[in-house]
């Protein structure tokens, strides 16, 4: 951990720069080339429309003889896998003429759990100030709350905008409080345990770490299935931040990951909170083997992992589909949900855990790549700072 002055960025840092450059390019491409098509959904809602005019972000829709048919607004809200964009048409009497899902980036499995078509059918015909925004009506199964909430919030934002611009009515936005539950509490406790353990060291650190990981395995794993995933990180990187009021856990986890990486030089998320790391350690304890992987194989696997993470991120950003990035088999273990490939990965990784220590963390996990990026960057910045003094 030498903090000595570094005159020129090491090779690893150069690679980080290049990767960041390409990812930024992918993001720019993704965000510019995925402008949603609003015209056809508006035509669907207003079949008699002849002409549209955009003013201040809402569409004014005209029919035969320049008769105003209504307005259409489309404001996005953050879902699980990225932004959700619903277009709402309002007729001249102020009633909902139609709702269309313009864009959604949820994993298919989550998308199937929400009932966007049914919700839109239900609110068609309602006056814009009497729309039912109860997202519970959109959820099919617990677990899709974020997606359901995004649908409702996108509709609310679109309606509010049209009401303000077309009818000059400011619709009240009901305040929503932060949802702080068991999960958030456990996350804070785990990071605190990590800080204490890290400071104290010795056998207490060992015991704290085991205790923390077991709690993490139960709560972040089997109970809530909410480890950090590449999809969530990609959503952040692409600028689609979920509403912190009902996605507080991911903010806490990412903040903990970053802060502990920076201040302790080793991120405490992986050591104390990650449920999948815990699962591997439990399996490893059952197996009792501690085979050493030869260094050349470690280097090779780490290289492969970094390339995989980069490619997943690059593809997800260029296609602007954060949910695409996730290759982790977490949901297969914690919720018995996953593609056949993810089931296969789970099988391979946990079987390997019997023989070698935490193979996922070392050879597959994107978090390890991100940790290295953070550490390298920090070291470099610190070195530069020292140089400048």
């Amino acid at each position, binding site marked *: 951990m030498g903090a000595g002055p570094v005159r020129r960025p090491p090779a690893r840092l150069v690679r980080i720069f290049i990767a960041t450059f390409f990812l930024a390019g992918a993001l720019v491409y993704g965000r510019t080339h995925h402008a949603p098509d609003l015209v056809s959904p508006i035509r669907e809602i207003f079949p008699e429309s002849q002409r549209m005019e955009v003013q201040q972000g809402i569409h004014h829709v005209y029919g035969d003889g320049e008769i105003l048919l209504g307005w259409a607004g489309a404001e996005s809200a953050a879902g699980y896998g990225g932004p959700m964009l619903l277009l709402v048409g309002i007729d001249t009497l102020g009633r909902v003429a139609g709702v269309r899902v313009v864009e959604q980036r949820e994993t298919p499995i989550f998308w199937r759990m929400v009932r966007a078509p049914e919700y839109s059918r239900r609110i068609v015909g309602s006056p814009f100030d009497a729309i039912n925004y109860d997202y519970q009506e959109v959820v099919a199964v617990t677990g899709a709350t974020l997606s359901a909430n995004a649908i409702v919030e996108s509709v609310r934002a679109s309606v509010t905008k049209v009401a303000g611009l077309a009818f000059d009515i400011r619709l009240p936005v009901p305040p929503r409080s932060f949802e702080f539950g068991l999960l958030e509490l456990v996350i804070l406790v785990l990071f605190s345990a990590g800080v204490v353990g890290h400071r104290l060291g010795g056998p207490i650190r060992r015991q704290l770490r085991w205790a923390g990981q077991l709690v993490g395995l139960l709560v972040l794993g089997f109970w809530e299935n909410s480890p950090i995933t590449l999809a969530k990180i990609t959503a952040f990187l692409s600028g689609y931040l979920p509403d912190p009021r009902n996605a507080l856990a991911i903010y806490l986890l990412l903040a903990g990951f970053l802060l502990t990486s920076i201040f302790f030089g080793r991120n405490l998320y992986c050591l104390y909170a990650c449920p999948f790391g815990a699962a591997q350690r439990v399996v490893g304890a*059952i197996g009792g083997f501690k085979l050493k992987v030869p260094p050349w194989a470690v280097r090779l696997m780490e290289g492969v992992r970094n390339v995989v993470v980069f490619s997943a991120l690059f593809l997800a950003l260029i296609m602007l589909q954060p949910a695409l990035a996730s290759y982790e088999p977490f949901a*297969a273990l914690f919720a018995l949900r996953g593609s056949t490939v993810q*089931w*296969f990965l789970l*099988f391979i990784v946990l*079987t390997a855990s019997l023989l070698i220590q935490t193979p996922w963390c070392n050879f597959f996990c994107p978090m390890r790549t991100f940790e290295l990026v953070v550490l390298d960057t920090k070291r470099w910045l610190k070195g530069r700072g020292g140089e400048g003094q």
Partner: protein
Amino acid sequence: MQIFNSGLFWFVEGILFVVVIMAVRAWAADRGLPMPVWKWLLFLLWLGLAGFTIAFVGTSFGEGESVAGTRGGFLFGLVTIIAGVGIWRLLLAGPVSDGEDAVSEA
């Protein structure tokens, strides 16, 4: 496939099962491992788990549910392997009896 509906099939299965048990006994005696009831119980449970996994995969593919066969095979196979390694280590536990000495004496 008539054989699988017949009693003969299960009769043969039973013979095989007995042979397996006898083999484990012989193996434990050779190694001088004590085999108390709880070890036998664990072993039989594991045998049931392994048998279930194989039968699950077979049944699933048989009824045309290949996705269930694959994913379920991975899940139950994983559980079987991990439990197998754990039980293997438990079987090896316990003081080594004189069995080994007896064999070497003979």
